[in-house]
Every structure is written in structure tokens, then in C-alpha cells.
């Protein structure tokens, strides 16, 4: 086939047509900009969040590599380096821990970093100074320096009590480098020199897992990356079997859960996909409609082009060239506005989410470029997909049909029409049916934003402040360890001294100070619970819990959290069974035991005890002395989350006993937490005084106030309103733009038809009424669709997502739709009227002459 060089003439034609259609240009470019803004803003927010969460998790883990081998030898490092799948391999040599008294609130590891990259991989790249080279040099984080009360100055002497596998020695190092410490990190790192490491932690000769008693010093930690973060676990398993076969000597591996959690969060992925689909749908609906409408309006000129010899392909190319030109103009604006609005919204999210390290969430240039590329591709694809069908229509129109085209005839089935009485309303209804596709697209576009607004409102309305706050706090104030859920030992929990309790009692305006004591103990089973346990063992034979259940059965005990509480705490308990009697309670013979031994979250637990059963608690008094005591079960009840240890056993108990009985069973007089209530007008003063105490305390005790949670909660809802509101706002704008465009184009393209109706006797008022009825049809259809789709979406999606949120009480409402409908009706009445007024500037005769 001969290739004809006709691109130039087609492009010229496309450009000329573009220039002649200013109104359409504005609408298309606006909709491309809006689509691009939506996508860019959301991906930049999502990208920053995912990236930031991943970074923050890495800082907690203490490393940015995807996987690592634990406690290996130098030859293992070589093997990993040689493997083709790994990259960025680094190693650290374990030396020991620093156990200075000053480090009681966090652990400090002493290691040797293989090189700068190894330090960087652990987020410990010194911002000042260098890595140690001489025997007595050390590089530490600022948190370590602060804990030791040392200045951030190179050359400072750093005293370290070093514990190398149980052998403790004192050292003095010279500070050669330091970096900003991460509070979120599980352990602080200190780098020593190779010479020091060689002396105190010489390279062992035996494989770690062949040792009888584990000794860590001198073993290497080898961390590395793969080309991508997909299936790190699978890749690591494959690597291990490649390097070690099925040998039992294969080392332990560590997978960085910063990568696995971000990959495995299916909810986020589904949410993301839904969002992208919504934006695509919004963009598609409007861009498709504009092209479709425009092609319908210009069909005669396409017919003419065909008559004079333009081929279908050339016409299709012409439309595609126009679409591409629109993209070139619209996308850059969309990207800029999208990134800016994403940044503003993200800032708001950061503030409300109380994010730890802003550094983690800083958006990198690489990510920004990726977002821009993705948005460009997405928007371009949306535009191209949207104009595919209109392109086809433009290309396939026959010249003769084009001349007679009036939206009713192309591809329409030749059907007779029933006779009805004529009125502006009936003519409007006929007009709506004339181009069903256009009507459906406009209605869907408007529906999309209405449904979104409605869903957002349903979600916001469902967020239950009381539920949220009561889960976080009981009483007006709680004083406790700031990371209570991560604590392991009883002594770590018990931080509030009797002196501090005394101080709290002296604060003016305090109504009540209720200490909560805690220690770990055991529940010793009697006959009835053992029988129930046997049943549970059979029932859960194939589950993860089975091991714990069998252990419990064999031992006749389960680990148990024992809480000693004052009478005031009884008021905040909500028994699932039994009744709490404060007078009986004071006798010290009764205990309250938990219901949920299994199925901690959604399914109903299976209690081992019934009210009236005898329960035996075993606890440690002092170091070696076991004390046991019998109680009668008064009620079945959970300890409120806010004043519990906030951690749970796979299979364990929770027993609440009176404070007085508790102190008979233990020597530790410190409380785990304190629940306080204050007089209403003294909140601020009491808050200040408590903080005065906690600030001066050496331990990590913090105070949480109801007020803070209320503020946090309102920040949280503000954030949802802001992000959701912006999103629905833009979608609403797209919907309205689509509606305006459809109505206005519909009127302009029917200019002649309207003039003819006017000529044969339809008055201006009747014509306006007819056009307004058309608009009202759009509004009514949108309202009906919104209610139906909104209801379905609410039942299928919203319920399933929010069902898991403890602070959500579901109430479906049509209120936002009901509020939007009058606005839509108003728009649908005003816009056609204005548009008709505009075309009426031309006389009937001129309009009749138009072709």
C-alpha cells in the first residue's frame, strides 16, 4: 500500500477545528486538569503515607535493608555478596550492650559497622564526625549522649559499661562522631572500632546454631536488598536453600517488616484501587461525554469531510490529535495543582495524625517524579480511552446520514412512537430519551459525586466520639508508661511511686485518685475450668491456639494479668455476667475474671469460669516466694483497654482483685497507672500540676487527659472532612461541569430546532420551561440513582470497612443527597434558562438559517 504523507494536513485540520471551538476547549481542558489534580493529589498523599510509614517502620526496626542473616560468619557474608539476587549487602559485627544506669529506658547496642553503608543502613550515619578508626573511639546517637548528660561535641569522653555476653567491663571512649537519634528505634546503636571489636568480640570459629549456649559476640549481622520488594520472604527462602541447601546449619533470617507490612496491607491496596477507579470513572464520564457531545454537534462537518474524501482513519486520527493537544495543555496544570494541593492536604494529615518523624514523610524527588509520570500516564490513558468510542462514531458516520443527523437517528432502532399529549414536560422527556447515552453519562457523573458526599457524611456521622474516647481513656486523666503495650516485665509497668500518689492526692481540684496495680501471675485451675478447657482443646484442635491450650491443660495453669484496683475503678467496669457488689468486694474474697480467653477480637470469647466458681491465683511475693489465694468469681468482665496493659496473651487470663488483697500478694508498692477525676473547672490546673510531676520524674511516665483525646478526635474528623471534602468537591465540580456542558451543548446544537419550534408557535416561555424540565430530569434521575447506589454502597462497602472500627456506629442517611437535590434543581433550572437566553440574542430567522 502506498504510504501517503497526510499527517500534516490532518494535524492542521485538527488544530483549526480546535481553535474554532473555544467553549469545548475550556471544558475539556478543565476536566483534564481536574482528573489530573485528583489523581496527583491522591497519589502524592498515598505515596507520602506509604513511603513515610515504611520509613518510620524501618527506623523502628533499625535498618532499611529488605532482609538479613542473623549471627553468621564472614564466609556467609561472602556467599551473600556473590549471590546474583542480592545487592547493597552490608554487615555489622555484634560486640555487646551498653548497660549504664543512664540507659534504663532504652537498650543500647555496641557494634562494629562494616563500612559507611552499614551505618547508613541502620539510620546511624553520623552527621558530625566519622566512624571510629582508633581503638578507643566511639560514634553514638544524640539520644545516648543526652541520656549520659554529655555535650554534643567531638572528643567528649563517653563512659560505657559494656556487657559482652554476661561479662561486664567499664570503658572510656572518645566521641568521634554522632547523629540524630531516633526515638522510635527499638534500640540505640553505638559504633566502635574494628580494633576494639576484634579484642572484645573476636570472630568465632563455630556456626552460631551449633553452639550449646548462645554467645553473640563476634558474629556478623548481614543485611541486604533485592532488586524489588516483591515476595521478600520467598526470595529469602530461595536464597537460604541455594546457599545452605536443606542443611540444619542454615542461619536464622530476618525479614524487614517495614516492607512486608506495606505490601501486605490489602485494605490499603483495595482502597487505593477503588479510589483510582472512582477518579477514572469521573474523568472518563466527563471526557467521554464532552467528546461524544461535541462529535454529535459536529457530525455534519465530519460528514462533509467524508464527502470530500477524508477517510475514517483520518477523522479518527484528527480527534485523537485534538485529545492529545488537550492533554498537553491540561496535564501540566493538573500536575502542579495536584502536587500543591496534595502537599497542603498532607500537611493537614501530618498534623492531625501526630506523626513522629517528619523526616520520614518528606517526599523525595524520585517519588515526586514517579507520581508525576504515573499521573501523566493515567490522565492521558483516561483521555484516550474516553475518546475511543466518540472517535469511532466520528469515523464511521456516513456522509448522507451525517447531514440528517439529529442525535435520534444514528444507530437508533427504527421504532414507532406512541402518541402522547404535547406539553413542555412531554417534549422534554422525549428529548431526554433522544440521547440516552448522554443522559446516562451525565447522571452517572453527577451521581458519583453525590454518592461520595453521602458516603463521606455517613462515615463522619458514624464516628462515635464517646466510643473513641472511652477506649482511649477512663476518667479525666490517666498517668502511665508512654509505651505500656511494649513492656515485658512487671517492674517496667510499676513506675508510679507511693510518694507520687501522695502528691497527686494533694493537688487542688482533684476529686479522685485511683491507682491501678499490676503484676503477672498464674491462674491455677480447679475442676470446672479444667473441664471447660478440655472442651476448648477439642474445639480448637486445628488452630494456632491449640499449643497454648494443651500447655495450659498439662500445667493446670495459665499466665494471668493480676490487677489490684480501688473501689472507684469498679464503677468503670461493665460486667458481661454477674453483678459487682462493692460491699462484698471489700471483703477481699471476691475477684472479677475476664471472659475472652479466646477469640480476642470479634468472636464471642469462651469463658473458663462462671460466676460463683472458685478461682486460685498464684503470684510472686518478693523474689522467690510463691503466694496463692482463693477467690470466688463475682463477675465476668474485661479490664477497660485504657487502664490495662494493652497487651494480651494468646491464651491467658485477666483477674481484678481489690487493692488491699493485691498488696498482700506482692511486695511492689508502685502502681502501674493512675486514673484520676477532677472538678470540671479545675481541669487545666490539675493537668498542669500532674505534668509538673511527670516532667520531673526519671521514668517514662506520661499523662493522658480526656481533653487531649477530644481534641485528637476532632482533629481526626477534621482531617476526614478536609480530605474527603476536597475529593468530593472536585468530583462535584466535574459532575456539575459535565452537566453544564451537556445542557449548554444540547441547547446550542439544537439552536435551529428550537428556533423552528419557536417559529411554529412554541413561545420563549414554553421553550425555557421545556429546557428547564430537561434539567430537572437530570436532577431527579441523579437523586434516584444516588439514593440507590448510595444505599448499596453503604451496605456493601461502608459497612464492611467500618465494621472493624470500634469507634464506629453505623447510621445510614440520605441527608446530604436531600440537601444537594434542591441545589441541583436550582442549577438545572437556571443553567438552561441562561443558555437559552444567550442563543436568543440571535433572531429566529438567523437561527433557522443556521446549518
Amino acid at each position, binding site marked *: 500500500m502506498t504510504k501517503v504523507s497526510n499527517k500534516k494536513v490532518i494535524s492542521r485540520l485538527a488544530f483549526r477545528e480546535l481553535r474554532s471551538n473555544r467553549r469545548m476547549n475550556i471544558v475539556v481542558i478543565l476536566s483534564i486538569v481536574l482528573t489530573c489534580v485528583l489523581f496527583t493529589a491522591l497519589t502524592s498523599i498515598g505515596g507520602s503515607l506509604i513511603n513515610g510509614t515504611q520509613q518510620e517502620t524501618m527506623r523502628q526496626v533499625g535498618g532499611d535493608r529488605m532482609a538479613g542473616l542473623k549471627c553468621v560468619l564472614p564466609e556467609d557474608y561472602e556467599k551473600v555478596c556473590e549471590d546474583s539476587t542480592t545487592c547493597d549487602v552490608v554487615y555489622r559485627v555484634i560486640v555487646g550492650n551498653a548497660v549504664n544506669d543512664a540507659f534504663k529506658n532504652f537498650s543500647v547496642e555496641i557494634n562494629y559497622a562494616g563500612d559507611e553503608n552499614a551505618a547508613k543502613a541502620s539510620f546511624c550515619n553520623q552527621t558530625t564526625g566519622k566512624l571510629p578508626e582508633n581503638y578507643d573511639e566511639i560514634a553514638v546517637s544524640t539520644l545516648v549522649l543526652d541520656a549520659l548528660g554529655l555535650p554534643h561535641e567531638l572528643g567528649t569522653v563517653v563512659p560505657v559499661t559494656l556487657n559482652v555476653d554476661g561479662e561486664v567491663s567499664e570503658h572510656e571512649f572518645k566521641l568521634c562522631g554522632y547523629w540524630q537519634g531516633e526515638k522510635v528505634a527499638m534500640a540505640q546503636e553505638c559504633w566502635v572500632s574494628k580494633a576494639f571489636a576484634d579484642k572484645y568480640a573476636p570472630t568465632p570459629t563455630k556456626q552460631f546454631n551449633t553452639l550449646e549456649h548462645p554467645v553473640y559476640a563476634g558474629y556478623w549481622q548481614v543485611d541486604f536488598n533485592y532488586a524489588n520488594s516483591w515476595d521478600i520472604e520467598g526470595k529469602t527462602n530461595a536464597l537460604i536453600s541455594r546457599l545452605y541447601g536443606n542443611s540444619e546449619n542454615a542461619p536464622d533470617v530476618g525479614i524487614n517488616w517495614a516492607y512486608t507490612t506495606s505490601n501486605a496491607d490489602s485494605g490499603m491496596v483495595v482502597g487505593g484501587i477503588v479510589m483510582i477507579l472512582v477518579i477514572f470513572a469521573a474523568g472518563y464520564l466527563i471526557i467521554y461525554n464532552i467528546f461524544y457531545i461535541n462529535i454529535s454537534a459536529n457530525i455534519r462537518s465530519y460528514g462533509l469531510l467524508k464527502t470530500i474524501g477524508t477517510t475514517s482513519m483520518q477523522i479518527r486520527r484528527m480527534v485523537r490529535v485534538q485529545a492529545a493537544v488537550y492533554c498537553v495543555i491540561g496535564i501540566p496544570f493538573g500536575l502542579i495543582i495536584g502536587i500543591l494541593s496534595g502537599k497542603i492536604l498532607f500537611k493537614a494529615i501530618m498534623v492531625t495524625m501526630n506523626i513522629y518523624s517528619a523526616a520520614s514523610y518528606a517526599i523525595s524527588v524520585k517519588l515526586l517524579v514517579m507520581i508525576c509520570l504515573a499521573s501523566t500516564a493515567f490522565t492521558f490513558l483516561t483521555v484516550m480511552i474516553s475518546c475511543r468510542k466518540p472517535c469511532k462514531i466520528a469515523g464511521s458516520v456516513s456522509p448522507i446520514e451525517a447531514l*440528517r443527523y*439529529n*442525535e*435520534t*437517528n444514528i444507530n*437508533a432502532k*427504527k*421504532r*414507532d*412512537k*406512541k*402518541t*402522547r*399529549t*404535547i*406539553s413542555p414536560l412531554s*417534549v422534554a422527556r*422525549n*428529548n431526554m*430519551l*433522544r440521547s440516552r447515552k448522554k443522559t446516562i453519562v451525565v447522571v452517572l457523573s453527577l451521581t458519583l459525586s453525590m454518592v461520595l458526599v453521602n458516603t463521606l457524611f455517613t462515615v463522619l456521622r458514624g464516628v462515635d466520639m464517646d466510643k473513641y474516647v472511652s477506649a482511649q481513656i477512663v476518667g479525666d486523666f490517666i498517668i502511665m508508661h508512654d509505651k505500656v503495650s511494649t513492656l515485658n516485665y512487671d517492674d517496667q509497668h510499676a513506675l508510679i511511686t507511693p510518694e507520687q500518689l501522695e502528691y497527686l492526692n494533694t493537688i487542688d481540684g482533684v476529686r479522685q485518685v485511683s491507682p491501678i496495680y499490676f503484676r503477672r501471675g498464674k491462674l491455677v485451675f480447679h475442676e470446672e475450668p479444667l473441664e471447660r478447657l478440655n472442651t476448648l482443646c477439642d474445639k480448637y484442635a486445628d488452630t494456632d491456639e491449640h499449643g497454648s491450650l494443651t500447655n495450659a491443660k498439662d500445667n493446670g495453669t495459665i499466665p494471668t494479668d493480676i490487677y489490684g484496683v480501688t473501689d472507684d475503678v469498679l464503677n468503670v467496669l461493665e460486667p458481661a455476667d454477674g453483678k459487682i457488689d462493692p460491699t462484698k468486694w471489700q471483703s477481699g474474697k471476691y475477684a472479677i475474671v475476664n471472659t475472652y480467653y479466646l477469640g480476642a477480637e470479634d468472636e464471642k470469647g469462651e469463658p473458663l469460669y462462671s460466676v460463683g466458681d472458685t478461682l486460685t491465683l498464684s503470684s510472686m511475693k518478693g523474689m522467690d516466694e510463691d503466694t496463692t489465694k482463693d477467690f470466688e468469681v463475682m463477675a465476668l468482665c474485661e479490664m477497660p483497654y485504657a487502664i490495662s496493659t494493652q497487651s494480651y496473651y494468646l491464651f491467658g487470663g485477666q483477674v481484678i482483685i481489690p487493692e488491699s488483697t493485691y498488696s498482700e500478694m506482692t511486695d511492689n508498692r508502685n502502681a502501674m497507672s493512675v486514673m484520676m477525676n477532677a472538678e470540671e473547672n479545675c481541669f487545666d490546673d490539675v493537668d498542669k500540676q500532674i505534668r509538673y510531676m511527670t516532667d520531673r520524674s526519671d521514668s517514662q511516665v506520661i499523662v493522658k487527659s480526656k481533653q487531649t483525646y477530644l481534641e485528637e478526635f476532632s482533629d481526626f474528623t477534621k482531617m476526614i472532612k478536609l480530605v474527603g471534602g476536597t475529593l468530593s468537591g472536585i468530583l462535584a465540580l466535574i459532575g456539575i461541569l459535565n452537566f453544564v456542558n451537556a445542557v449548554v451543548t444540547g441547547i446550542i446544537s439544537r439552536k435551529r*430546532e428550537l428556533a*423552528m*419550534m*419557536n*417559529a*411554529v*408557535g*412554541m*413561545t*420563549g*416561555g*414554553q421553550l425555557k420551561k421545556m429546557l428547564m424540565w430537561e434539567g430537572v430530569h437530570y436532577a431527579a434521575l441523579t437523586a434516584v440513582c444516588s439514593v440507590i447506589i448510595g444505599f448499596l454502597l453503604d451496605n456493601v462497602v461502608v459497612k464492611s470497612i467500618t465494621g472493624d472500627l470500634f469507634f464506629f456506629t453505623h447510621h445510614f442517611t440520605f441527608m446530604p443527597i436531600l440537601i444537594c437535590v434542591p441545589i441541583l434543581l436550582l442549577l438545572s433550572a437556571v443553567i438552561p434558562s441562561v443558555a437559552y437566553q444567550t442563543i436568543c440574542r440571535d*433572531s*429566529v*430567522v438567523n437561527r*433557522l438559517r443556521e446549518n
Partner: protein
Amino acid sequence: MEVLKTEALTKIYGEGESKVTALDNANLSVRQGEFAAIVGTSGSGKSTLLHMLGGLDRPTSGKVYVEGKDIFTLKDEALTIFRRRKIGFVFQSFNLVPTLNVYENIVFPIQLDGNDVDDKFVNEVIGILGLADMQNRLPNQLSGGQQQRVAIARALAAKPAIVLADEPTGNLDSKTSQDVLSLLKVTGQKFSQTIVMITHNEAIAQMADRIIRIEDGHIIKGGEPND
């Protein structure tokens, strides 16, 4: 009886150098039941004249009386209502409402007026024009000739004082043109309907009772019944 009359009807488009006098001091009168043809070449002013007669356009000066009523004393809305009651139009390009079927198109002006349709009369018109079998069809299912017959039926249905036909056969082949014109004439005679038709085709004009000639905006012959 005089149904239509103009007095010194003048229409000037533009100003200054681009000023064009499309119609200059045109006087004509048409009697009840008469079938008059306005003939002129392209650009002679015949369409402008027809638009003035139908109240679609306002003159620069002069008057148009329909059944003795000076129509340009009416405001736009009232003029439209007057038009649908007193004037029937047949356009060259048929101008049917695409979403209404044949019957609905025919009774469109009557129902817009909120009046009951005189079914007997309308069915008679439909029968004469041969549209009885296609009443439920949409315009795009009809041929050009059929569409024009629907347009004629619409013009007659409201029993107007006058039917104005603007090159009614301009879009039709000669055989169909002949048929349509014959029907127009026959129905006009049957219902004593006054018809004013404009055409540039002498042969078609010959079918009329009277020929009014127009040239450069001037009526040069046939303006009065006895001319």
C-alpha cells in the same frame, strides 16, 4: 375578504457602507382562500418578505396586517402565540420536531396552545395528505416528500388564517415536488385556506392563483389582487 395586507414594508440590514435594503416599501394584499406565489431570483428579498409576513422578523418600517391585526404591535411572546393560532409554516427543510411522531408533530401547535384537537378535521387532513398509515412514525423514518406532507398537515391543522410556504419543494425531486404541491393546492382549496408560497421556480409558481413578482426588494407585479 382581505386576510393579509402589508403597508410600505421595509427591511434594512446593516448600517453605513454595509447597509442593504432587503425589502423596500413593499405593499401587497392577499384575499381569503387565495393561493399566491411570490416569485423572485435568489437575493430578491422574497424570503425576507415571507419572514415579515409570518412575524418571524420585525421590519425596519411598515406594517403587516393579518385578519386586520397589525402584528408588530404585539410583543414577542404574544406574537408567537398569534403565530401558532393564525399562521401555518411550511419550510424548505421540513423542520419537524425529531422526537415527536407524525401525529404529535401535526397537532404540536394546537396542543401548545392548550386546545383540544379537532380530531375530525385533523384526520381528514391526514387522510388527504396520505399520512394515515404513518402517524406513529418518527420524522427520521420518513422520506423527504413524506416529511413535507407532515409539515403541510401541521400548517393546516390549527386552521390558521394563512399558510406561508418557504420554497416547500426546494429539497424534493421534481416528481415529489409535483405531488406535494398538488396536495398543498388541493387541501388549500378544500379547506378554503389562504396560502402564500415563495419560490424561484416559475413552473411551480404557475400552479398558484396569483403570482407576485419581487426584484431587488421591490414588488414589481401582482402586489394587489387585481394586478
